[in-house]
């Protein structure tokens, strides 16, 4: 993203999320996002395979031991 495209992205995304944005704030936010983009580029270089899942995933309920299951019978 160029500076201008980042600024356009900030204004568009802020509108979608309902965040009011004047020109001064949009410029400052775009500067932050531009820096974060450079940091995010490091992630693109990570050697991730499709098997690399998120660090933590949703768990519907804590796992129940076999002993617990037998007690419920």
């Amino acid at each position, binding site marked *: 993203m160029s500076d201008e495209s980042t600024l356009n*992205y*900030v204004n568009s*995304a*802020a509108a979608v*999320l*309902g*965040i*009011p944005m004047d020109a001064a*704030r949009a410029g*400052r*936010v775009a*500067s*932050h*996002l531009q820096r*974060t983009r450079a*940091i*995010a580029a*490091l*992630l*693109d*270089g*990570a*050697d*991730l395979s499709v098997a*690399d*899942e*998120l*660090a*933590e995933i949703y768990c519907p309920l804590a796992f129940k031991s076999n002993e617990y299951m037998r007690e419920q019978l």
Partner: protein
Amino acid sequence: MNTIVLDTAATAAQLAAGHISARELLQNCTAQIEATDARVNAFTEKTLGRALAEADAIDARRTRGETLGPLAGVPYAVKNLFDIEGVVTLAGSTVNRSHAAATADAFLVSQMAAAGAVLVGALNMDEYAYGFTTENTHYGAAHNPHDLSRIAGGSSGGSGAAVAAGQVPITLGSDTNGSIRVPASLCGVWGLKPTFGRLSRRGTYPFVYSIDHLGPMASTLGGLALTYDALQSPDPLDAGCHALEVQPVMPFMNSGIEGLRIGVLGGYFSDHASPAAREMVALAAKTLGAMDEVTWPDAALGRAAAFIITASEGGSLHLNDLRTRADEFEPLSVDRFIAGALQPADWTIKAHRVRRMYRGKINALFKDWDILLTAATPVSAPLIGTEWLDLNGTRHPARAAMGLLTQPISFAGCPVVAAPMWPANTNGMPIGVQIIAAPWREDLAFRAAQVLSRAGVAHTKPALFQTSTK
């Protein structure tokens, strides 16, 4: 009595023996707060009515001959993101002033009360914990007691400053990317960031659910250990509290380091440390007999992923207020919060996937090592208002740079004791050293810290409350 020299364990023992009362301890503490806080600005709320009631209850129990808790009568204070019954939890903001007062204490405040500690107030911090300097525009900057013109670090800056100023011997803070270790380093006090999931976070105002830790800071290593043990308890009501039983460190404090494999982090960590910081790491390494340089895998990648998850979760958490009350936010961080809320989902999801891979590499590293050492901050405390920092020839944004050495460690969830050390060429200002162990091995970090403490190379110092302009 200046509480900076107050040894928590010895104090509790003196109180149990009747040599001093909890009310006298509290009076000493409040006198020091009154004498110093106009200059330090550590406290945002004083709970002296509650403190008096708690102190008198301890004295009454002693009079009746009842068994007292391990922290009986010891005054402490908490970062103002901890719930205190009857007090509004500010989390460093003015937005939260419109919230109702907390109806119950945070889980860890309850643990402290059960141990007999006496709560004297709530402490300054960066708004919503998004900062490393506690230059809080709403409540004023927390000043470093060792040089009032310098930052105390953050985001638990009030917690570090209050201990360094001798106001209280123990404080509680939070650490997502370094917010206990950075102020511990810059204020020259002991700090502990436990394993991620060790201590319950219930009843505290969150910053980044998937990385937030809580922990203690203290004037002595013994006080840090005693407090940590008192804070431990499984808590099934905090989804992020993974510890299923208490694993105290006090019984192992004096076990020494014989047989432990201790290394020094090189590469990224050396590159981002000033000569003074490297000098302190070298002194700690020499004292502990550590010879080998070790590479922490993917440190820059880990920091990048932590940065992105922090921005995304933080921005999302405050999105409603950012829509309607952005002008009431801290000017130093509001635009970062908004930028975080706008981040593409791909960045955040990829960062979580990187974290899983990263965890595997770090856990593999600790198959070969028991303790790893590095500085807690790249430099000693900068002047308040510093914008840029030159680090080994590279220009960094000063506020973000304070977390360069802590962020990769907390992202892995490893426990760290921050040991206060004192370089020769920093005008009397401290730099902490991180003593890092594998997840769930706080005991090893405390054993190594005890060796540094006993050798006299890591310790606190009384503050002089002077101001310099250099």
